[in-house]
């Protein structure tokens, strides 16, 4: 449903609003016949409904159209870029999920003590900052002053896994910071609620060691809402990728969309955005699945 609405919005935004596509490509001085001919070749002189149907049915079959700028199919560009973005997002996620959860758990266990204050306030402050601001500051610190990390994410050709990882640390840090606050806050409030609950009191009162109470009773309940937050943040993460990839000159889906937007390359732009929508929908689905696996109370069907 969401994807359907998104596809319509993307289509309208990309095809209808910019007006005459042929004119936009050929410039204001081109011959009208050339413009008409190009419009006909691109198929943008057909009725809207036919255009939408043609576009969406091709997209579903993996044909994303032809780039106005590169004059070649869009799909390989999008797939390459998506792969690159996945690498960057994966680095950020692998770093932020455990550390964020740990931060939230530690804060909750030290509720209202200085450590909690530092984690909560620090997390909140870095979360609200735009990625390019933290990005610039991190580049200055680690790339320009300390010279520990490369300031661009474009690694040398045929770079191995670890070299790529090395180039991805700095770009993933701003994403890490933004997500850290959210995840830590959710984990913290989930923990506080779980620690305050009757089942925790029961577990403590029946003499279970504190460690067992935390691991078996508290954590499992506390982290459920966090999983949902992590999934909803995927959409956010992708928005962040547009900025980060531009800042670090990284060939991902974000910079693909950005470049396409600048060059008014609509097939590229539309495919890029729709691809992101699909990724987001898949992430939400995975989160729902994980949630039901981890929470026996809402597991569908019965295995008794």
């Amino acid at each position, binding site marked *: 449903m*969401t994807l359907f609405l998104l596809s319509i919005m993307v289509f309208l935004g990309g095809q209808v609003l910019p007006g005459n596509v042929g004119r936009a490509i050929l410039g204001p001085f081109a011959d009208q016949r050339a413009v008409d001919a190009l419009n006909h070749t691109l198929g943008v002189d057909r009725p809207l409904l036919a255009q939408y149907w043609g576009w969406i049915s091709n997209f579903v079959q993996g044909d994303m159209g032809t780039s106005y700028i590169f004059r070649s199919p869009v799909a390989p560009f999008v797939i390459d870029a998506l792969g690159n973005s996945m690498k960057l997002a994966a680095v950020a996620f692998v770093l932020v999920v455990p550390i964020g959860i740990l931060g939230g758990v530690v804060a909750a266990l030290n509720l209202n003590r200085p450590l909690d204050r530092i984690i909560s306030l620090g997390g909140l402050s870095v979360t609200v900052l735009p990625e390019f601001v933290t990005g610039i500051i991190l580049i200055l610190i680690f790339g320009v002053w300390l010279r520990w990390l490369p300031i661009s994410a474009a690694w040398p050709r045929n770079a191995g896994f670890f070299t790529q990882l090395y180039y991805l640390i700095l770009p993933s840090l701003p994403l890490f910071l933004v997500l850290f606050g959210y995840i830590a806050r959710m984990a913290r409030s989930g923990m506080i609620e779980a620690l305050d609950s009757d089942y925790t009191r029961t577990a403590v009162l029946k003499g279970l060691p504190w460690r067992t109470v935390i691991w078996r009773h508290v954590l499992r309940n506390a982290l459920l809402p966090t999983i949902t937050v992590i999934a909803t943040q995927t959409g956010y993460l992708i928005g962040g990728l547009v*900025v980060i990839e531009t800042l670090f000159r990284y060939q991902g889906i974000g910079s693909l969309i*950005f470049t396409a937007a600048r060059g008014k390359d609509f097939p590229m732009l539309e495919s890029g*955005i729709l691809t992101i929508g699909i990724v987001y929908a898949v992430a939400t689905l995975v989160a729902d699945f994980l949630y039901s696996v981890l929470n026996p109370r809402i597991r569908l069907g019965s295995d008794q």
Partner: protein
Amino acid sequence: MSAVQTTSPTPDDTRRRGPLAEVLLSLLRSGTFLTGFAIVMFWVACALFGEHFAPYDPLADDIINALAPPSAEHWFGTDQIGRDVFSRVIVGSRDILTVAPLATLLATVAGTALGLLTGYFRGLVDDVVSRILEAFMAIPVVIVALLAIVALGTSKTTVIVVIGLSFAPIIARTVRSAVLAERELDYVAAAQLRHESAVHTMFVEILPNVIPPILVETTVRLGYAIFAVATLSFMGFGIQPPSPDWGLSISNNYGMIGGGFWWTVLFDALAIASLVIGVNLAADGVHGALND
């Protein structure tokens, strides 16, 4: 939720001053709010009167002194065509502090109207509008904005409208849930029994009672609006040259930081950071004051 509860049963005229004074008092006692408010007011002052106390004209170039590091004459150094970075940072607050609040205002007005409608009528209106709003919220704001701005062309008005409309669903959701709680209360039933029109019931009876959550959501949104405007400007789709806007300055200068010209971007970045954190601290204070 508790904000709704504390204000809703208040009879209109007898205690109108009471809660307001209380809220103001607890705002003034909140260190978080005062810190945030002071930071925001500092930048508002810069936006309003910046050119009077900025040492140089933020747009005047001076090619001979281009890329000069910070010194006694130029506290924050100069940029690639010799413009004084200090003056630019001060005056650079103006555009973002015009665009972001206007976008937030638009979002609040549109979101409140939508929230009242969907919360009050429920049923089909609610279902249809809520589904559309959900779909809308699933897409990152930056992407919506990018698409809309490319299609509509770049201008301050486009940025205001695009950010305003993309934030409206979020405010609508907050208002809707507050209205859902309110509409079950007796004063709404009384208004309906008096045969007041739906518009009257929504805007005269219910609206005053859902102001606290709207206020909280608005201050929070203002932080995000600044985030969004700064980001769009950095991407080149927001505020346009020759404005000394912070995001725009960073976008023009960050290509050279590999060469060590850190002063051309650091101060703009810190300015955005301080403004965003200031607004969020203030929002946190407002939230605390209204929920006590």
